[in-house]
Structures are given as C-alpha cells and as structure tokens.
C-alpha cells in the first residue's frame, strides 16, 4: 500500500513538473509564432526614423517605443520608491521589532498584500481628486503617481521575502555575530543580510516582474494610449501592458492583433532583462563582499 502511494506521488510529481513545462512551452510557442513575425522596425517605431525616434526628436505614432520607455521608467521609479522602504521594513520586522508591535505590523502588511491592484489604482485616483479639491488644483494623474501606487502594490512582497529570508537563518548562524563580539547592527548587516541576500533578491525580482506587468493600477493613475515618450515625473506616459490591453480589446485589423502579440513578446523580454540585471547586480555585490577587505 505504502509502495503504491509512493509510486503515485512519484508519478504525480512527474506529471505536475511536465505539466508546467508543457504550459509554459505552449505559451511561449504561441507568443513566438504570433509575435515574432511582427517584430521589426515597424513595430517599434512605426513610420518614424529610428535614431530621431529613440532620442525623442520625432514623435512616434502607433508603435511600441514610447511604451517600452514608459514601462522601464515606471518600473525603475516604482522600484526606487519601494525597494528601500520594503527591504528596510523587512529587516526591521525580522531583527528589531518588539514582539507585540511586530504582530500588529505583520497584520497590516498582510492586509496590504491582500489588497487587489485595482483598489490601489482607485486609491491613487481618489488621492488626485482630493488634492484637486483642496490645495493642489492642478494635480493630475502622472508617471510619479502611477509609480507610487505600483510601489505600494509590490511593497508587501518585498517585506515578506526579506523578513522570511532573515528569519529562516539557523539559530547557530545567528549566534556567530554575538559570539564574536559584534553588536546587533554589525550582526544584521555583516552576517545576516549577506547570508539572506539570495532570497531577498528573489523577492526583488518577483516584485519587479509584478510591477512591470500590472495594468489595473496604472490604468487609473496616468497611463494613456498615445502619450509619446514620458515628459517628466508629472507627465502622462505609455506602458507595454496597457498597450497590450487596449490593442487586444479594440483591434480593427489582424495586423493590430498581431502587433499586440509582438508587444507581449517585447514585455516578456523586457522583464527577462530586468530579472537578469537584478541577478547580475547581486553577483557583483556578492563578489565584492567576498573580497579581501
């Protein structure tokens, strides 16, 4: 009986693994077959000359370039806002927070994690309405607002992964610092965080991916279809996921649907690049930490 159960579990694990493989493979195949033919100068820049378009001297219509730039700016800005806050909150919760306070804070973070992204968007939108009616009549939805709402969305991922990465270190490992006469700060920053670095990074990567793909938040906070390149923090912007959304929702010709697939492929590559640069950054940090000081 036990043997049969073991065999069953074994088979199921194989099927499950294989299933994931198949699903991801099919998805990639579909995207590649539909999107790859559309990839080209036309998809990115439309009729505009390439170099002028890249540097923003010529306006690009009905093409990807502004959305690519918009998404990169959006993600970087959101990460810039969320990373320091999220990681330091995680460190505080894991290493410094008093017990009861920690319980309350963790509850709040869980609440934040459970908030749907559209609610974050709504919150941003309501904030702008409030500001307009009170002391900032010129306030408008913008890149900065969208990034701030996105930052709010990814904050709990960062806090959770940082906290659990630090808390999962073994008791003996935690004692290295104190046993060598380190104070608590030194223990946290020179012993615990470097050891938890890899797991913290995976949280960063996850949250960057989450920020890049989210549409609901930015829809209410500043993205529009034909904004061109982002004109500063307080300007409107375009973004890849939103472009995919409106192309597939409102396409009139098969070509437009095709370019939506192309856009999806580009978004996938973009997140891939973001992931790998985060990974490369981590490698560099690890290398430097390892060096003879």
């Amino acid at each position, binding site marked *: 009986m036990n043997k049969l159960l073991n065999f069953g579990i074994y088979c199921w694990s194989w099927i499950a693994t294989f299933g994931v493989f198949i699903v991801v493979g099919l998805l990639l195949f579909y995207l590649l077959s539909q999107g790859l033919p559309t990839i080209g100068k036309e998809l990115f820049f439309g009729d505009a000359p390439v170099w002028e378009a890249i540097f923003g001297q010529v306006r690009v219509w009905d093409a990807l370039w502004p959305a690519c730039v918009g998404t990169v700016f959006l993600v970087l800005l959101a990460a810039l806002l969320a990373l320091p806050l999220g990681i330091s909150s995680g460190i505080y919760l894991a290493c410094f927070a008093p017990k009861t306070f920690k319980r309350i804070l963790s509850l709040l973070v869980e609440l934040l994690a459970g908030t749907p992204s559209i609610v974050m968007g709504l919150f941003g939108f309501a904030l702008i309405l409030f500001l307009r009616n009170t002391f900032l009549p010129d306030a408008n939805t913008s890149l900065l607002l969208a990034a701030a709402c996105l930052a709010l969305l990814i904050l709990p991922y960062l806090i959770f992964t940082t906290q659990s990465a630090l808390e999962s270190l073994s008791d003996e490992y935690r004692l290295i610092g104190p046993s060598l*006469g380190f104070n608590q700060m030194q223990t946290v920053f020179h012993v615990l965080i470097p050891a938890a670095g890899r797991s913290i990074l995976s949280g960063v990567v996850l949250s960057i991916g989450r920020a890049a793909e989210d549409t609901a938040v930015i829809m209410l906070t500043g993205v529009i279809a034909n904004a061109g390149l982002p004109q500063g923090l307080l300007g409107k912007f375009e973004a890849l996921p939103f472009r995919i959304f409106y192309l597939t929702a409102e396409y009139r010709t098969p070509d437009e649907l095709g370019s939506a697939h192309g856009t999806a492929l580009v978004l996938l590559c973009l997140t891939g690049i973001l992931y790998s640069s985060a990974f490369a950054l981590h490698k560099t940090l690890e290398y430097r930490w390892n060096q*003879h000081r």
Partner: protein
Amino acid sequence: MEPAPMKHKPFCNIRNLHVSFHGRTVLQKINFTLNNKGILVLVGPSGSGKTTFLRSLNRLNEYYPGYSGGGKIELNLSGSMQDIHCPNLELTELRRQVGMVFQTPNILPVSIAQNVNLPLKLVTGLNKAERKERLIEVLQEVHLWDEVKDRLKENSSRLSGGQQQRLCLARVLALKPKVLLLDEPTASLDFKASHRIEDLLLELQDRYQIIAVSHSLRQARKIAGQILVIKEGQIEHLLNKEQFGDQEMFQKLLNDIF
C-alpha cells in the same frame, strides 16, 4: 604578543548561578571556584545543561527566547577577577575576550581570509596590514596556514569539516581572547580530524584558559586538566587528574554518577 600564562591562579568564581528558559530550570545553584589547571572539560548526560553553562560565561544565553537567570560570575580577564554582569563591561568586549566555538563548524559563507578578517575589522579596528599579519599568525597557530595559504580567497565552504572547525578557532583566536569556550568542538568531525583538534587544544592550553564540553570520555581524559561532571543542571563532581587518570576508577566513578 601572547597572553601571559595563568597557571594555577583562580580564573573563575561562580556564586549561585541559575538559568531557566520559559520557566523550565536548566541550571540551578551552581557554586564553585576554579583554579587554572589546564583545560576544563564538562561532561554529563545530554540535556544536563552543559551548553547552557558554557553560554552563561559569555552571556550568550540572553539571546534565547524565554531566558531568565541570575547569580554572579567572575572571570579572570585582564589579570584581575571581573564580574561579567558588571555594567562597566561592554557585552561586545566580554564576548571578544571570551571566545566561543560551536558544535558544527559555523563559518560565514565568504572567503577563508574574510572569515577571519571581517571580525577583526569590525571588532578590533586594526588597519589592513595589521589584519593581514594577524590572519597569517592565527592560521599558523591552528596549523591551517600551509593548507590554505594559496587559496585564501576561495570560499570557505570548500574546506573539509575539520579545516572549517580550525578556521572557526582561528577566527576566535584572532580577537585575542583570554578564555575559549568550546561546545563539543569535534562532534561533527571524523576520528582523524578530532585528533588534530585535540592535539591543537593541548598546544593552546598554556596561552588560553579553555573550557570545553565533550561527549566523549576518551577525549575528556586526553585533553582535560580537570573534569566537571554536570547532571540535571547541577555540578556533581569536580575531578582532578589523579581521579580520572586511572581509566578503571574513572569509569566506575562515572557509572556511579550516571
């Protein structure tokens, strides 16, 4: 500049030490004064409080949840007896002077050199050249230098268990402690590596006051100057060399105790 030998001077004076975790008593009514007569080895059944006793001496117990305890512990640190709970003695300074090596090799996941360098940098404030010098000195002291001198920048996890444990010892020695606490330092090592560590401890015993927990009676007899038998959180016996020198008598005594 080696620490001066502290032969036959009192080095440890404990009055009414008691420790409990979450209300469960682990050590109680510990009273004794100890002279420096070589390595002090703690033996006793598992769960008898040996490790807790060891951790009382560098106040590491206070890191564990549910700790409560009291009593007075004086150690001979800088030539005179010093109360380790005295507010004038910084906790970090106490732990520098009372170094500890754990049961399993507890290396930092960095290079071999960095394992010794990081504590030196953070705790002692030596400059780079002095740190380099100290690194070589302690690696030679634990006989690791010849094995690692060409691979100092390699990750220390590539060392064998015995080498890692000697690296941990070197890391502690680099901070120039007065007392060394060793919590079953050979528990995770094979026979040969254990022997190397034991021989090393015998070499070091003149320079540092060593207190070690051991699970092996063979090892205890080999390295100890005195043996402290702990049972159910209390001190049962303090044996000197004559008492455990004769194996049969020692065995009989232990059979009576356990």
